[in-house]
């Protein structure tokens, strides 16, 4: 993919250096059964101020990719087998803990799916936000607490001055996710990684949180890497999308192109397998399911990882992994078709 992208950028104008550029990343895990190739050669990049959606089903490696960026992977059992994670041109993989800590929160922040387990239950939310501010901005505790209340106000938590002294269990799920966003944004990072931020929330609360993230993006101008399995969320919030399957990127495209003209059979299947609320008036069709299940990442076969479930699979598909090729402006697909 690197070569393809280099060619395309040569052909057009020279693009600015991306904020984050992941090249050929391989994050593997050693288990009793052998090496699990969770992330197996992933290339993706995020430009300043854009929202990139990373979609895929459970076990496709989207979360491991995100955690690799912040080096939040336990090593062992995990290890970086190969690849580079270039943050503003600087490779993060060889960095020591102390160096990484300067990047975490201040430059790249992350919010998780489950807001209850990612907040510490024995400290007030104010303490937890203030800790981040204190640590990274070298402020006194008192100033940091004022900052924490200000952050709570920004994420539209009512009565921030009072709520800052409350504990996580006193907040609802949606409110906790607001607290997480307040904490993540307290140092005004350039990139926010949101790992399934709304999966645990009800649909009306999900709408509130997605709106809040958009509002915060407009305010702070950060880029967002939105990891999700929900195609609807991607369509409504992202500019560009990367589709992952079994540890590989299978398609990358601007959001309109991905939904308007999906090229990889897996992407096509994903889009067609979702029932659509807005098409209620049309004739009800049978859902197009993708047969079979995700292959094991223990000892993946040499060819295309989707071949065993693909209805267009040919003999060549099982022999070699097809490269990512450009099929439209910024539209890459890993398929021989």
């Amino acid at each position, binding site marked *: 993919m690197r070569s393809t992208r280099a060619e395309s950028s040569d052909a057009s104008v020279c693009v600015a250096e991306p904020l984050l550029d992941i090249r050929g990343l391989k994050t593997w895990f050693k288990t009793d059964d052998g090496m699990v190739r969770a992330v197996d050669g992933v290339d993706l990049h995020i430009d300043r101020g854009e929202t990139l959606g990373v979609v895929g*089903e*459970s076990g496709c490696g989207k979360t491991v990719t995100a955690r690799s960026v912040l080096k939040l992977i336990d090593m062992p059992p995990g290890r970086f087998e190969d690849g580079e994670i270039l943050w503003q041109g600087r490779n993060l993989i060889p960095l020591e803990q102390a160096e990484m800590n300067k990047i975490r929160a201040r430059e790249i922040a992350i919010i998780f799916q489950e807001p209850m387990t990612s907040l510490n239950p024995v400290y007030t939310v104010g303490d937890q936000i203030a800790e981040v501010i204190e640590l990274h901005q070298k402020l006194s505790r008192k100033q940091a607490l004022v900052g924490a209340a200000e952050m709570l106000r920004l994420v539209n938590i009512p009565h921030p001055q009072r709520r800052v002294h409350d504990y996580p269990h006193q907040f*609802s799920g*949606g*409110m906790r996710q607001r607290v997480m966003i307040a904490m993540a944004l307290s140092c005004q990072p350039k990139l926010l990684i949101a790992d399934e931020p709304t999966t645990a929330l*009800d*649909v*009306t*609360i*999900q*709408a*509130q949180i*997605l*709106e809040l993230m958009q509002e915060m993006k407009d305010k702070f101008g950060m880029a967002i890497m939105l990891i999700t*399995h*929900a*195609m*609807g*969320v*991607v*369509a*409504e919030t992202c500019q560009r999308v990367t589709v992952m399957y079994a540890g590989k990127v299978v398609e990358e495209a601007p*959001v*309109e192109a991905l*939904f*308007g003209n999906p090229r990889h059979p897996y992407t096509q*299947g*994903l*889009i067609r*397998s*979702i*029932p*659509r*609320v*807005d098409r*209620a*008036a049309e004739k*009800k069709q*049978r*859902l*197009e*399911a*993708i*047969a079979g*299940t*995700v292959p094991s990442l223990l000892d993946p076969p040499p060819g295309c990882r989707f071949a065993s479930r693909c209805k267009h699979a040919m003999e060549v598909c099982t022999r070699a992994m097809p490269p990512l090729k450009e099929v439209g402006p910024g539209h890459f697909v890993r398929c021989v078709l």
Partner: protein
Amino acid sequence: MSGPQPSGETLLSVRDLRKHFAITGGVFSRVVDKVHAVDGVSFDIAAGETLGLVGESGCGKSTTGRCILRLIEPSSGEVLFQGADVTKMKTDALRALRRDMQIIFQDPYASLNPRLTVGAIIGEALTIHNLAASRQALEDRVVQLLETVGLQPDHMRRFPHEFSGGQRQRIGIARALAVEPKLVICDEPVSALDVSIQAQVINLLEDLQEQFGLTYLFIAHDLSVVEHISTRVAVMYLGRVVEIAPSRDLYDNPLHPYTEALLSAVPIPDPTVKRKRIMLQGDVPNPIRPPSGCHFHTRCPIAKPDCAQRVPELRESKPGHWVSCHYRG
């Protein structure tokens, strides 16, 4: 009180069903408060149809499903299955009834006994209800059931941990079908599954309904899934049904402001579709002390002062389309 009627012959009628969970406290575990999980729910299900039950977490949809089967004892109300009141049945009658009413659970990991083989899990109900004459007959039936849900005959000797989430849900479905039920309560059967697998299971449920003439009560929080599979849909909010209508009617022309907001919040997987979103403020109120009058008035965009005083009745606004709102319909 007569509830919203479906068109066909009624299989199940739920009348003013209530379930209050007691909250105990203090040294003597006195009842200090009550959670009104289900607060007067009525609906009918016709034979052969699918009634979808949607709502956000804590609205009482799962509790309703379990009260119907008496997996949870209802506090009051009637559940009439083919005319007989389930809530008054003694143990024997209830056991016989369970042949006619089965349930499929959300979590395919927690709902299968990890120590039993798949064959034993599916065959258990057959043995309990004396539905197999011999060992051979039992095994034949299990094989037949496995094939019906798209699994292999040799899977019967394996254990649940050897299967993926989607396959386990198929095992759960085979177990429910073993006793040839009339009504199957599907409690969030696809919400733990990935989208591509979700479609497989939805298609399977639709095929089985056609093949065996099953009636479903389909409980889910995902409105697009419910719309797809249901004949009619009931929307719940804080223990009460706020709207019931034929599926397409509900989605094309929602009457209750809550239904409207819920529908507009569902993200559409198409970036070219731009809709006006009705943003609801705040969270669902605490069901221990639900708001007075209409439960929705605290978040309702069209609430008027008397919504806090008067409880709206579920009334028929158009044929088959029932809504509980003072100002809509």
